[in-house]
């Protein structure tokens, strides 16, 4: 079954309705201080690629759903393989899957696969999906030693046992091995801003991104986020490739909007991120990014593909917002100070609480920076049910 539709969603109205509700309750809506200016230093003389964000298919999002792809929390790799093939063909309009992959990857590329292990072990980029991506990249002709799985935190990568899930020869890079470990970062590529008077005002880009890989396939998870609202393609790339990002939060204020989008504009990150494959096998609808509470993790069995991270994340935002509404949780746009807690454990177990005034507007802000399309009416959203 397939249906193509341009959605007439009402999610943009959530923020407005929330303000009205707060006024009715007599609570003063939160007004965040203006974000400080952010200075960016990209790689000098880097020539931007036309494959870079928003990529070859701005505004296009392909959702492939197979409820049989996950059962009792076990992901079926054969099912994932079928979903990925179908999704790639639909995204690109090519008649066969190899041609679809060749639009993005050449045999001479060094391919980085950016995983999201931050919810491990309960919810992280499924190894079954990553293995299917590796197989597809190999079929294009990329040798295994030129395939690099990476994330910032080696601890989280190891907690997910990621190394054991990979084929022999594929490289795995956990950039930081301890606090203040800067050895894996490129000191010439950074974003600089002073958010809260922090002592280190720079965030550096991972050297594996700036110096080693030539293309990045981004594999975020379908997940809410206590600060940024949701964590999708944009946040997985930005906060998973630059260091020293936690400084952009100080409860209950977060500057994930606009920092996430700004980071994604920095070259060569922008140009190298050519494809986004969101893992929606599991859906964390509250407690992200770190929750391990299974009652907040649904299992929709979905993949979402696109080259436009803003369009994919806008769709993710819609999905998670609707799920939270259905479950009676707070809106992602909630601004009621009475719903704030400083107790993260309390937050992890109560979907009526927030740690931060979340900033889902970071997605639209990234759209304004030219990274993609956030206007829901302009997003070409294809749903495929297998």
């Amino acid at each position, binding site marked *: 079954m397939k249906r193509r539709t341009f959605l007439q969603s009402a999610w943009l109205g959530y923020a407005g309705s929330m303000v009205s509700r707060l006024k009715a309750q007599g609570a003063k809506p939160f007004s965040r201080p203006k974000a400080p200016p952010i200075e960016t230093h990209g790689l000098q003389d880097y020539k931007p690629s036309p494959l870079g964000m928003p990529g070859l298919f701005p505004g296009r999002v392909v959702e492939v759903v197979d409820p049989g792809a996950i059962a009792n*929390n*076990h992901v079926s790799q054969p099912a994932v393989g079928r979903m990925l093939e179908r999704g790639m063909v639909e995204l690109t309009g090519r008649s066969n899957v190899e041609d679809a992959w060749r639009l993005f990857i050449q045999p001479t590329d060094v391919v980085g696969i950016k995983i999201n292990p931050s919810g491990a072990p309960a919810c992280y980029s499924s190894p079954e999906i990553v293995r299917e991506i590796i197989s597809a990249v190999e079929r294009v002709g990329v040798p295994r030693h030129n395939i690099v799985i990476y994330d910032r935190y080696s*601890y989280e990568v190891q*907690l997910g*046992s990621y190394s*054991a899930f*990979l*084929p022999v020869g594929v490289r795995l890079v956990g950039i930081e*091995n*301890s606090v203040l470990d800067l050895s894996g970062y490129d000191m010439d590529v950074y974003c600089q801003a002073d958010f809260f008077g922090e002592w280190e005002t720079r965030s550096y880009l991972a050297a594996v991104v700036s110096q080693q890989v030539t293309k990045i396939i981004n594999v975020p998870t379908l997940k809410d986020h206590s600060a940024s609202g949701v964590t999708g393609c944009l946040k997985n790339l930005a906060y998973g490739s630059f260091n020293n990002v936690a400084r952009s939060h100080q409860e209950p204020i977060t500057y994930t909007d606009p920092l996430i989008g700004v980071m994604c504009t920095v070259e060569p990150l922008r140009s190298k991120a050519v494809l986004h494959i969101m893992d929606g096998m599991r859906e964390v609808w509250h407690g992200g990014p770190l929750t391990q509470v299974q009652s907040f993790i649904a299992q929709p069995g979905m993949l979402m593909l696109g080259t436009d991270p803003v369009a994919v994340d806008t769709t993710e935002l819609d999905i998670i917002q609707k799920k939270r509404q259905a479950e009676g949780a707070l809106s992602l746009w909630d601004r009621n100070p009475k719903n704030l807690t400083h107790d993260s454990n309390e937050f992890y177990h109560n979907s009526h609480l927030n740690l931060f005034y979340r900033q889902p507007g970071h997605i639209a802000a990234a759209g304004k920076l030219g990274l993609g399309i956030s206007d829901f009416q302009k997003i070409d959203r294809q749903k495929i049910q297998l």
Partner: protein
Amino acid sequence: MNPQNSDAEQWATLLSDRERTGGLGVRHVSAPNQTRWRVRLAKSVRSAPVLGGDLLFVTCLDGFLHAIDTRTGRHAWKFDAGNQIHSTPSLAGNKVLFGCGGGSVYALERSSGREIWEFATKAEVWPSPVVQNGKVFFGSADGNFYAVDFESGKREWARSLDARIYSTAFATAGRLYFGCSDNHVYCLEESSGKVLWSTPTGNVIDSSPAVDGDTVVVGSEDFAVYALDAASGAVRWKFETGLGISSSPAISGGTVFIGSKDNFFYALDLRTGSLRWKTDLNTSVTASPVVAEGVVCIQAGGLVALDIATGKVAWRAALGGSLQSVPVLTGRYIYLSGIQGTVYALE
């Protein structure tokens, strides 16, 4: 304080024995009440320390094997392997052995840190080398399981499995048991590397098996604990937990102790696989337990001692958050390392 097997040349598995005591044997241990010394290493520790005489051997992601004098907490020596180390050291005769991220396995002189030999594989070696009958056995992420000569470091044989190996072997008379990333548990003939049997599970295995009598016990990332017939590989029982298992079981007194990423620590009947008790530790449990008299200790968040009969928390020390570290229990002292890179001697 001397390890029981300091003069032997046998180190059968991860931490020497099925109780994971590092060759010290099951000791009485009580709650620590003070820190005797602490050493801050440059990076995270993702392995278990082992004790030999007065030296505590700790591998670290800073690329060094650290030999720390337990009397002073100061370095006796350290050896630069040049690559991250996840491998728990093993002790046999006058040697300390470990693998490293660059693919090499090293044998060093225990007293001085002098390199005796180096054996190179083509990818990282995270398992702990196992020593039996004059050979050293270990798997590599290059897809091979190796046997090398204990004295010379020369290759005896290699068995290609074409899948990464992160599981430390358990050696019994003539046989080697370990898990593999191709989802199988393997039994190899010690003398030749011939595959005697292999048994599939539902996902990759990075847990290290323990063998008691004729039963092999191991966890799998398919969420289950397996007990296999050591002779045939036939599955005797399978116990489902809520998430993947990279913890390695300890076995003592007919009970299997193992952690799961579902936050629970389990005690299972070795014969039947039935649940004796389980305890929620409120964090993923990926390290291996170590058995002591009356308690079983596990590093999960911090160091936790559970009553061996009931699973109730006997005491806790809020130190030693860990992925794979296991405390050294000497009776009087507890040596502890963890992800923050600090090594503690607790008294």
